[in-house]
Structure formats: structure tokens, C-alpha cells
């Protein structure tokens, strides 16, 4: 099914049936009950629909992980690449085929640990694509090992005494590396997340969105964080929309993570910076 021309900019949650754009023959899907990745997938599909992006002209490039497995369910041109490398694959694809709309789906381990260097340079290089990083604080697919975004003191299979490494703020990294568009949102508010992703898709250049997902079955269970509903509620209460400004923070929630559009600037896209090749002038000698 193709996303039709001329659909209205906003469709209600009831009107948008994500199943129309999924490879339903692969269902049942593999996600655990309550996994936040499912809500993230719904939001990214809804945003595609509202932005009128044709499934034929879309290319979804995924890394390896539970997050990376999402691509297979999208009825489009989907690429399941190698662990940590989807941004590098996507860079080649986007440069070779500027007519395609390139979306990368990656996880916190995929994007920040093994793929950290590629993220830095994708932000800096500014090739037109959207990177959606599903941060569930853990290596879900491999059974719950510590990740660069695991909160302090949390238990994972490789931090039996609690995590002692500091947590990585991916949005700050993306901003520092020069990304023109950076945003963060929780999965609890799918329509808000959808609106943020739409803005990222629309951005001409490299856009980075951290989606605060959750791994209910492994991370949640291990740390006794409750069921899915409790996990996303506590996630929500640890964040605060950027649009609220700084005043509300102090003195109540100085450590709350900001959500929403965190950076939006104007930078020339990679291809707009093409320079004609200058012939080297021989040095004139007297």
C-alpha cells in the first residue's frame, strides 16, 4: 500500500492504521509484551504517513539489536546492516540516491558504543537523513548487558553490583558534533513523539532523535521497575519538555532530561557544499 498523495497533515490515532504499512505476513512480531520499541515504531510510521512519504521512496536502514529488527516489519525498502554501522551504510545510500528518503533505526548500544564514531561523523558531515535512536538503557537483544546509557547503579547481566559508569547524553554529543537537528521524546506520548519525528523527517540535513524507549522484559524485570505502564510513567516524570524553559526546573527538578526539539539550526546539507575542483597553480618563481 502506498501512502496516498494529498492526505491531510494530521490524522487522528484512530484514523491511522499502522498495519496498512507493515509486512503483516511476518507477524506475530518478536517484541516482548510492553516493549517500548513498538510504540516508537508506531510513531515513526505515523509520521511518515502524515509527511506523505511514499513507502517506495523510503529506505529504512537498521543496525543490529531489538531496535534494528524493526525494519523488517516495515513494508518498504529495508536494510538490516551490521552492528553499529547503519549510519555509515546510510551515508553511502543517501549520497548515491538523493531521491530516497533515508531513515536510520538504531539502538543505544548500536549507535553510541560500537557505532559512536559513525554518529559523530554523521552529525558533522550532515548528509540528509534522519537517525532515530531507540534508547532503552540496555543491550536488549543480547540479553541485558550494560550499555553506554544505562543509568547509575542499575543492574544488568554484566553489572551484577550495579552500573558504575556514568551515563551518556547522546543529544549533547549530537549537538557538539554539529547536528543541525536534535530532539528527544518519550514513547509514552506517541502523538508528541510523532510530531517531533515529523519535524526531523522534514529537516534538510542530518537529524537526530533520541527516543526514550524501554526494555520491559529484561531491564525492567531485573531492576524491578514494574510493568510497562509503570516504566513509561517513571520515564515521563524524569523528563520535561524543553519548551517549559528553565524556570520550572529550579529548584524542583534540576536533573530532568529535556524533551522536544533541542537544536534546530540552518546548515548547508552535504551536497550543497560541493566545491568546484580548483586546479593547483604552480608556484611562480622569480
Amino acid at each position, binding site marked *: 500500500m502506498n501512502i496516498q498523495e494529498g492526505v491531510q497533515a494530521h490524522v487522528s490515532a484512530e484514523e491511522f492504521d499502522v498495519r496498512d504499512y507493515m509486512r503483516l505476513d511476518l507477524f506475530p512480531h518478536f517484541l516482548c509484551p510492553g516493549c517500548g520499541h513498538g510504540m516508537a515504531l508506531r510513531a515513526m510510521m505515523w509520521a511518515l504517513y502524515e509527511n506523505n512519504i511514499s513507502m517506495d521512496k523510503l529506505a529504512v536502514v537498521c543496525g543490529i539489536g531489538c531496535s534494528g529488527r524493526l525494519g523488517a516489519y516495515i513494508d518498504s525498502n529495508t536494510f538490516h546492516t551490521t552492528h553499529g554501522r547503519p549510519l555509515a551504510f546510510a551515508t*553511502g545510500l543517501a549520497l548515491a*540516491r538523493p531521491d530516497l528518503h533515508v531513515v536510520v533505526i538504531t539502538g543505544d548500544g548500536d549507535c553510541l558504543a560500537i557505532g559512536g564514531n559513525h554518529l559523530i561523523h554523521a552529525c558533522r558531515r550532515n548528509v540528509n537523513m534522519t537517525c532515530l535512536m531507540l534508547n532503552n538503557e540496555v543491550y536488549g537483544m543480547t540479553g541485558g548487558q550494560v550499555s553506554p546509557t544505562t543509568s547509575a547503579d542499575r543492574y544488568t547481566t554484566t553489572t551484577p553490583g550495579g552500573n558504575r559508569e556514568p551515563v551518556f547524553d547522546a543529544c549533547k554529543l549530537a549537538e557538539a558534533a554539529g547536528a543541525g537537528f536534535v530532539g528527544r521524546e518519550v514513547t509514552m506520548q506517541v502523538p508528541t513523539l510523532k510530531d517531533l519525528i515529523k519535524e526531523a523527517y522534514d529537516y534538510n540535513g542530518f537529524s537526530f532523535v533520541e527516543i526514550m524507549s524501554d526494555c520491559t522484559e529484561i531491564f525492567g524485570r531485573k531492576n524491578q521497575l514494574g510493568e510497562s505502564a509503570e516504566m513509561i510513567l517513571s520515564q515521563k516524570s524524569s523528563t520535561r519538555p524543553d519548551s517549559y524553559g528553565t524556570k520550572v526546573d529550579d529548584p524542583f527538578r534540576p536533573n530532568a532530561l529535556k524533551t522536544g526539539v533541542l537544536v534546530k539550526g540552518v546548515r548547508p546539507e552535504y551536497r550543497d557544499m560541493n566545491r568546484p575542483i580548483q586546479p593547483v597553480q604552480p608556484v611562480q618563481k622569480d
Partner: protein
Amino acid sequence: MLAVTKRENVQGNAACALGAIAAGCRFFAGYPITPSSEIAERLAGELPKVGGTFVQMEDEIASMAATIGASLGGVKSMTATSGPGFSLKQENLGYAAMTETPCVIANVMRGGPSTGMPTRPGQGDIMQARWGTHGDHPIIVLTPASVGEIYSETIRAFNLSERLRVPVVVLYDEIIGHLLETIELTTPDDDQLIDRKWASGDAKDFLPYADTDDLVPPMARPGDGYRVHTTGLTHDDRGFPTQVPEKAEHAVTRLLDKLDHHAELIESYEAVMCEDADVIITAFGITARAAHKAVKNLRSQGVKVGLFRPITMWPFPEAAYKKVTGNAKAIIVAEMNAGQLVLEIERICAGKPEVHRVNRIDGEVITPDELQAAVKEVMS
């Protein structure tokens, strides 16, 4: 279009770049490393002239990934590197083999292992080129021995890669990479250039990895409406991951059979004065040129010696080798490593004829004198 030929004095690495352009390569992603950097440098200037794209990535892992990404988009693409970078490319090279994504990798060999001797020649990546990435996988490796051959073998590398949907490595040593020779730059006719088979027909019924007579399925170009899934996971004919034993076996078996099936197209070698030879030197790259000289010198002294030079290193032209060396009394495998190709030759010969070795791992080339002495010793 008719072939345009011009004579030019070019460096080996430049010939690789020009061969790529002539073959229709329109995307290069790389990372600088001696002694291969001239390929990237030349293409940085040449690609924009023909509407292509050059990008210097953050490392070799990324450049291999971007090369494959561009090819998945339908553009002929390549990367170039040397030992340490070739090690980094192995992960995604396996992905290209598994997903049957055409791509060309030039590996200009320096002294190894590790950072080794960056500006000295070596031939120590023979086994890595074959077995560098994990698992059973198909790969083609071409070993040109002159600047002209780098040009023509790079074109052939693209053709084989497109035709068979297999990654192709163009493997040569630093000496040939930095050698200047006057060569004919022949622009291939359109009908001498091969483009991969593209999917056509009803998108609904399309199976991206269906069995075909030639074992090479057509590829779906993103944007053409086929909407296929590409994965390095073992996949079924629909392209989706499978762990069903029969399907998994079938998928990998076809990948490997593909090369056997097209052996005639892939194989290439040169046999010099082997018909009546008592001793046959087996060598490739710059070592083969020293061997050629040694054969000429010895022949003028009446010594019956020949040279077998594999141009396609992998899959090794085994049948041809057996035929050519069948009547010889001895074989000398000469290579600038501690003994790699010789393992394959010993396997093929299985004791008959006897196999001797000449090796160097000091960053110096093997000379005709050394080879002449080795032949005389073997014959005495």
C-alpha cells in the same frame, strides 16, 4: 561507443582509479592508508567529473559500509585500502557476500603483520583476502602484475562483481601500486561493461533470492516498487531471516556454488613456457615479474623452466593448474610472505610434483637471481 585508446604514463594506483571510472564506478568511499592512498586521491578528482561521488569516511569500517550502501542504491562502487584497513573492512565484506551486493575492494599490500612496514611491499594478505571475514562465503580475488593489468583487472573486477553479485578484491603489492608504466588506456565498449540484472516484472510476486539457472538472482533497486528486505542474517528466498535448517543450508550453498558454476568466467592465469618445463615457478604480482625474467635467463642457458601466474587468485584456477603442471618434476612457489599460496599449491599437487618454497618477509622483493639459484638447486 567505440573503444578509445590512448597511451599514457601512469602509476599503478592511478591505473586502478582510471580502470574504475572506465568500468562505470560512480561512488568511492575510503580512508587514507599507505600505499593505497593515490587511488582515493585520484578518484577524488575524477569522480566529480563524471557525476560520481567521492567521500572520505571516518574509518575503513565506515568506508566499506558506505561503499555497500551506495551499491545497494544501484550505483557501481568501490573502496581501497591496505593491510590494517583491509582487516577493518572484513566485517562488512562478509555482509556484501551474504547480501550479494556488488562492490570492488582494492588492497595494496604492504609489509605486515599489524602496522608492519607501510612503505615496503608484501604479499602477505593472500589468505586474508580469501578467509578474512568469518563463515563460509564466496569471494573473488584478482592479482594483477603490471600497471596495465591493474587497469584491465579493475574493469574485470567490476564486471565480475556486477555479473555474479559477489565482492571482488583487486590485490597487488606496493611495488606495482607505485610503479610507473606506459600503458594503453582503452575505454571499454558499452557491451564490454556488465551491469547487474535488475528485477523486472510484477513486484508482488518478486522473490529477491529465488533460484535462477545461473544462480544469480536479479537485484531489486530501491525506489522501483519492489520493497525488499536486505539482511546479513541467513535469509530465505523472500529475503527474511530464517533458521530452518534446509533453508539455511540452501541459501549458503547457492552462494558458494555460484562461483563454481561460473568458474570459466572467473578464472584467469598466464602460463609461460610450461609445456616442456621440468620446473614451474608459481608466482603472482611483482614476484611473477622477477620469475618471468628468471625463466627467460634460464631458458637461454637451456634450462627447462616455466612460470605459472594466477591472475585470478581466488577461486584458484585448480583444474588449469593441474593440467599445466602435470608433467613437471618440481614446482617452486615464490611469494613475499612466509608461505601462503604454497599451502593451496601443496593441497592441489598432493605430493606430485614436489613443491618447494622461496619466501621473503623482509620488505624486499624476490629477485630473478634468487629464483635462478632456487631452480638450479631444485634441479641438482
